[in-house]
């Protein structure tokens, strides 16, 4: 007997598309409409069969797993809590509460992704907007160091390049799309202008554009910057200053290259300076479905978006000190709780290996490289598929996820509640 759920929300990436139609037959998803390939994977590849939690590879009851997890965490002197980005805010809130109680270090996947973006925002601010402003007003888009065609696959259609809106009834024809990258990609191929820059030259190119916007172009003596002729950069700056409503989107091309937060700051400063001439905003392309929510929950509960240590009894902020890769590299954690992420797959090898040396508790709907090495594994419900909850889109808009399948497993929130109670 098929059931159709309209307006379901996909949680794969920061696009958080909420127009998904899901057909359910029995206890499984049989069809999805309007997803990209990644969204399809979220719904179609989900195996809802209930699984038992495991302790050191052996199946146990939920109660036994909670006891073991609570023992590991309460006996630890310096527990590390990490992840958060693929779970709902309801669970994130309980996770931060647990970290507070334990006096733990708590860090999110921002630290290996848009952490530098957060640092830049803290240094120089961030002029931004919601995605509907892009759809309705933007006549100039600049994608810098990101490849939405691979990582945010419905972004162009739903929100940006081809989206039609109040002032942009003709979609793509009513705007210009510029893509800045070090190599051709599927995104550069759809651009009106592909600005190919030398690897490692983003800061210099950005500061050159900033100089033009600030009217200091006459002081620039170089003939080219980052492999781009100066005249071309000047023309781009002119274009940015004379558009009606410009929006820049940025990604790992800026956060993962040397310079990191300083490079992102330069982009943010450029966007702020453009507001002397026109309207310009920047939207970071948040990767995971609810990493923006993790930022929000951390900020409202402890004042800082990531890299927090509660050991003193109150939150202390320390990027580079309390960020997970650094903590693991310096072997400062003697236990870990990993919520909704897979650091063994994503961390530099040496940091990933450290996780194999300490007791690790994992909450994750799917098996992963981290669950493989964990001491305690809780196969929890997947928010947005099997459980409702809240997620925040890349532009900060919060959307309530729907449960398209019956809930058969406990949620992250429930397990965190139980662990917290057991620890107390």
């Amino acid at each position, binding site marked *: 007997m098929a059931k159709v759920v309209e307006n379901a929300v996909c949680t*794969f990436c920061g696009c958080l598309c909420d127009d998904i139609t899901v057909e359910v037959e029995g206890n499984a998803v049989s069809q999805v409409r309007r997803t990209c*390939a*990644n969204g399809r*994977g*979220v719904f179609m*590849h989900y195996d809802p069969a209930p699984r038992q939690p495991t302790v050191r590879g052996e199946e146990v009851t939920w109660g036994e797993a909670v006891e073991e997890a609570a023992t590991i965490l309460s006996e630890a002197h310096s527990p590390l809590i990490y992840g958060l980005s693929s779970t709902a805010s309801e669970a994130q809130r309980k996770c931060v509460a647990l970290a507070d109680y334990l006096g733990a270090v708590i*860090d999110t996947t921002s*630290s*290996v*992704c848009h*952490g*530098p973006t957060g*640092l830049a925002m803290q240094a120089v601010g961030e002029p931004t907007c919601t995605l509907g402003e892009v759809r309705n007003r933007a006549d100039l888009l600049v994608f810098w160091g990101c*490849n939405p065609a*691979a*990582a945010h*696959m419905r972004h162009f259609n739903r929100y940006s390049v081809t989206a039609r809106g109040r002032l942009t009834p003709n979609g793509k024809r009513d705007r210009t799309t510029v893509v800045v990258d*070090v*190599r*051709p990609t599927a995104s550069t191929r759809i651009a009106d202008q592909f600005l*190919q820059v*030398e*690897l*490692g030259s983003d800061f210099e190119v950005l500061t050159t554009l900033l100089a033009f916007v600030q009217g200091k172009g006459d002081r620039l003596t170089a003939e080219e910057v980052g492999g781009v002729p100066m005249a071309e950069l000047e023309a781009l700056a002119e274009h940015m200053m004379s558009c009606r409503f410009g929006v820049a989107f940025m990604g*790992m*091309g800026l*956060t*993962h*290259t*040397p310079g*990191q*937060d300083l490079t992102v700051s330069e982009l943010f400063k450029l966007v702020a300076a453009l507001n002397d001439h026109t309207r310009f905003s920047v939207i970071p392309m948040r990767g995971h479905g609810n990493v923006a929510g993790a930022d929000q929950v951390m900020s409202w509960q402890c004042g800082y978006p*990531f*890299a927090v240590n509660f050991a003193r009894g109150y939150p202390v902020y320390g*990027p*580079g*000190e309390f*960020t*997970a*890769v*650094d903590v*693991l*590299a310096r072997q400062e954690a003697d236990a870990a709780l990993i919520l909704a992420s*897979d650091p*063994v*797959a*994503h*961390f*530099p*090898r*040496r*940091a*990933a290996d450290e996780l194999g040396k300490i007791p690790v508790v994992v909450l994750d709907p*799917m*098996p*992963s*490289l981290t669950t*493989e090495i964990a001491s305690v594994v809780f196969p929890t419900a997947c928010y947005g598929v099997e459980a409702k909850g809240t997620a925040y889109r890349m532009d900060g808009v919060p959307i309530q996820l729907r449960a398209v399948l019956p809930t058969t497993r406990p949620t992250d929130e429930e397990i965190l509640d139980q662990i917290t109670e057991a620890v107390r």
Partner: protein
Amino acid sequence: MDATFKLVTGRTRSQADGLHKGKGTEAYRQATERVEMNQGDMGALGLNEGSTVHLRTDAGSVDVMVYQGELPSGLLFMPLGPAANRLIDVETDATGTPRYKDLPVIVERSVREGEAASDG
């Protein structure tokens, strides 16, 4: 053969697709245990499509197969994943974020495939 390149890692569609299927699957391994190189660079190093190369950074090394990619000379691209992460150092310059892009990497003939590459 020994050459220094700059490595960029990032998301690809097939890496994400493999992710859905499961990170222990063959699909994920195939999607992530690969490197792309500029055609001219491959020729200069005597590499064929699918040759195995040994990539080495200060952090570690990995053997992967090389394929032609639309890249400027001197640049390599690898999808995000455990293979690429063997090359990434834990140094974060006090930001928390490792250098996943723009890192110097030495490309060597893989010991396993040494004979095969010199044949082609």
